[in-house]
């Protein structure tokens, strides 16, 4: 019963609350180690462990872990080569890291919290915060801008000047192209953040339905319905955890391709 009470008392937004684990302040800057940082560290540790296990005993006929690791490698490598060509393969480490980090964060966030632990040790999804996903989007954006200018010099600006446009329309079109370009990190960030936020909200709300039906006397029978719903949503969330990491990675590939071949 105490567990049920805890489920009902906590609002659906409480799972997104940032809590300090190790407070650390420099002047006005709050650099505390929070639950978000903790789950990023857990994500990175999980990826490192997985990749270490996968590459520990390399053999020509791969074992289970090795072929799992290899299929991640092949998946990302094929995607990047398909979008940006073999020239884009120099960005493979970045795209692979990006994909694995987002995937691990999304997936680990679906892990249930240990009942009865203080809120700051609860499971947390770093990618459910706009600032995190936006920062990841900005890394891609910065990479594209810096590499685009480094590779093409001022020719990179051709990206904003489509060919075959009447001279009268050119200033307007250029402004629109620039806005479209600037909106990329925002749309990357919002998409991932909104997906994660929405999924976790739905899970929590369905869980609240289950809990409140369970204490409603004879109506407790009906609690199986939201419970089944929650199972279905959780399965969907597993798919979304992968899908959004994939979408983020493939869009990064598309944008990097723009930096390599800047002409529309």
């Amino acid at each position, binding site marked *: 019963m105490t567990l049920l009470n805890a489920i009902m008392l906590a609002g659906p937004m409480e799972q997104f609350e940032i809590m300090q684990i190790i407070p650390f302040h420099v002047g006005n800057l709050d650099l505390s180690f929070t639950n978000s940082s903790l789950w990023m560290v857990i994500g990175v540790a999980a990826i490192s462990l997985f990749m270490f296990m996968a590459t520990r005993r390399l053999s020509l006929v791969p074992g289970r872990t090795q072929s799992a690791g290899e299929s991640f490698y092949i998946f990302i490598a094929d995607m990047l080569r398909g979008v940006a060509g073999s020239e884009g393969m120099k960005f493979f480490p970045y795209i692979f890291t990006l994909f694995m980090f987002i995937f691990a964060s999304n997936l680990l966030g679906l892990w249930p919290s240990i009942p009865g632990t203080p809120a700051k040790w609860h499971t947390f999804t770093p990618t459910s915060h706009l600032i995190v996903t936006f920062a990841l989007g900005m890394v891609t954006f910065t990479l594209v801008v810096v590499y685009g200018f480094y590779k093409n010099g001022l020719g990179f600006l051709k990206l904003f000047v489509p060919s075959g446009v009447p001279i009268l329309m050119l200033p307007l079109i250029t*402004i*629109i192209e620039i*806005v479209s370009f*600037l909106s990329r990190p*925002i749309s990357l960030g919002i998409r991932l953040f909104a997906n994660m936020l929405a999924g976790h909200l739905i899970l929590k709300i369905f869980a609240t339905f289950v809990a409140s039906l369970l204490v409603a006397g004879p109506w407790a029978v009906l609690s199986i319905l939201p419970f089944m719903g929650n199972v279905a949503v959780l399965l969907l969330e597993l798919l979304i955890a992968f899908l959004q990491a994939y*979408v983020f990675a493939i*869009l990064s590939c598309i944008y990097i391709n723009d930096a390599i071949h800047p002409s529309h």
Partner: protein
Amino acid sequence: MVMADKDQTSYEDPNDEDRLDRLGQKIAKARGEKHETGPETHSTLGKGWRLATELVAAPMVAGAMGLGLDRWLGTLPLFLLIGIGIGFAAGMLNVTRAMKEMEPDKGDDDDE
């Protein structure tokens, strides 16, 4: 050692350069090339989210830029409205591009 099983299968000879290729061909033949690895596995849900955010992000960026200009120049609604207008145009452009990318038979596109 190596010579002993040479006649049976040569895949285990580490000095044979082509052994992986031959194994790959054999596997591909056994699979009957039904498995084409391509990144075009967008689900409908992914597409929907993609288009929605592409449409929304541009007006937000342009609107924020307009608002910034207005704050600076003290012409409040003017550049905000222009910005949102341009933002919608850019959003439509983004959506059109995203749709074009999603088309299954794009065949490396006609740009460049």
